[in-house]
């Protein structure tokens, strides 16, 4: 099989990640630096919300926020924030909590609903969107535009996911700096490292693509893919799982290492389930992740490990995608989704399945079920 005949959107996005990261960084940094000190200072708690990949970007950025700002940060599903979260969490003190709402288009009903709810109770809001003229952009107190060029290829989401993460990281650094939790030097170094880490990792992708294609050929007929990751790496695991569905409609599941050992471990036909484990050395639960990997080995599941540790750390029967270590551990989610994005893209191409099941009109009918109703509780 000639790999070049199986080119796909996710692969193209991965290969151009460095270029887009620079575009986003340059667009976002001047906007973030204008966030007023008073409101940044007032935030006693931070919520990050959005739908799908946007929400995952919030999970990916949780460690960054908590490490750099020292403020409790809660990534929350949009529907949970807009319909379930108690009012007492909103506006209990001026400009708090700080609620960061993410939507690439800025038109998602649920995130707009979140923004209106914040406005009703006096919470501070920042929108992250590529469309500042959107409903979300207008509804939020501040709007950070990710600055991605219009009309480029962003589906299934990869570049947009990274744009959200980069923006969140830069907001976290702004908050950390204003609150004097990081110095000017540290802030400058972290900003620089964001792009440098992406550039360092980009050099690995040609080799990763070669290996991803080989894995895709072996994994294309597996029964399911099962993803495992903890803390911020949970976002990487979940994101991979989402790509399985978006790219080829596969069966998939995701969990953290602890729950996986209690539940997913018992899935039947383990030798027909592809396991993807994100295991970085600085993750607080690294030892538990290694125990999980040992369990996967016993089950004889095909396994891909994504890590910043050396390959020798893991069983030699497993396929390890080793990433350069980020200077700041919370930056790892920026890039570690790439190997499985590539695998998912290749499996879809090999199977001849279009993204989002565009070959089956029943899937297009989802749009008809959307009322666009916005409820402000």
């Amino acid at each position: 099989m000639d790999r070049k005949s199986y080119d796909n959107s996710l692969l193209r996005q991965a290969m151009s990640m460095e270029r887009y990261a620079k575009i986003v960084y340059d667009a976002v940094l001047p906007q973030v630096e204008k966030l007023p000190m008073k409101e940044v200072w007032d935030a006693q708690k931070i919520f990050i919300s959005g739908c799908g990949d946007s929400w995952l970007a919030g999970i990916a950025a949780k460690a960054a926020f908590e490490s750099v700002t020292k403020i409790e940060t809660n990534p929350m599903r949009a529907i949970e924030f807009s319909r379930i979260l108690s009012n007492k969490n909103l506006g209990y003190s001026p400009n708090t909590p700080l609620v960061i709402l993410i939507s690439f288009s800025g038109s998602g009903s649920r995130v707009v609903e979140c923004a209106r709810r914040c406005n009703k109770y006096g919470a501070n809001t920042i929108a992250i969107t590529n469309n500042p003229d959107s409903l979300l952009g207008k509804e939020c107190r501040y709007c950070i535009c990710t600055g991605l060029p219009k009309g480029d290829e962003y589906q299934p989401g990869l570049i947009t996911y990274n744009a959200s993460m980069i923006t969140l990281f830069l907001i976290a650094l702004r908050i950390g700096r204003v609150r004097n939790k990081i110095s000017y030097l540290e802030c400058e170094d972290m900003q620089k490292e964001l792009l440098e880490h992406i550039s360092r990792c980009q050099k690995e992708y040609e080799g990763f693509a070669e290996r991803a294609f080989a894995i895709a050929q072996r994994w294309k007929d597996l029964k399911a893919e099962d993803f495992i990751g903890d803390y911020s790496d949970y976002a990487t695991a979940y994101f991979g799982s989402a790509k399985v569905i978006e790219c080829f409609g596969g069966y998939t599941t995701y969990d953290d290492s602890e729950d996986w050992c209690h539940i997913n471990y018992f899935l039947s036909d383990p030798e027909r389930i592809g396991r993807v484990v994100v295991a970085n050395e600085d993750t607080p639960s690294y030892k538990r992740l290694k125990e999980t990997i040992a369990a996967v080995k016993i089950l004889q599941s095909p396994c891909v490990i994504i890590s910043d540790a050396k390959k020798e750390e893991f069983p030699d029967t497993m396929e390890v995608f080793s990433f350069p270590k980020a200077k700041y551990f919370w930056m790892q989610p920026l890039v570690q989704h790439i190997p499985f994005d590539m695998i998912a893209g290749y499996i879809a191409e090999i199977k001849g399945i279009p993204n989002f099941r565009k070959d089956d009109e029943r899937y297009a009918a989802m749009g008809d079920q959307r009322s666009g109703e916005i409820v402000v509780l």
Partner: protein
Amino acid sequence: MVFTKEYELVTGRDLLTKITSKVDEAIKESGIKDGIVVVETRYSTAGILKISRHGEEILDDIVREMRRIVPARINYYHQDSPENAAGHIKSALYGSSVSLILKDGRLYCEDSQDLYFAEYDGPRNRTYAVCVMGEKA
């Protein structure tokens, strides 16, 4: 004759770094015995101070009082960060250079005071320059 020498330092957070020995070093290197010595930093969130050497507690008092007079507040017009905004004001108020008299190869204030590099928004990589102007003996 004019002799200028630049020095580098890595500052801490809100720290006074004694630079008297570096200034003396520049004076000796210049060979100038009588004239004027100017010590200056080019940054706007740092400064050069001349402080009494009679007790370490004076340094603590100075840092504390500078913070009291110009606290890191969130309502400055300059919105970089509270420390940075206050740092600009401290630098403007307390000065970013000092001029000193050099007599017989010694600083006129040498017996009673030391020179300090004052950091108002650190830690950072900083530089300052010592310029000695006058006549060689």
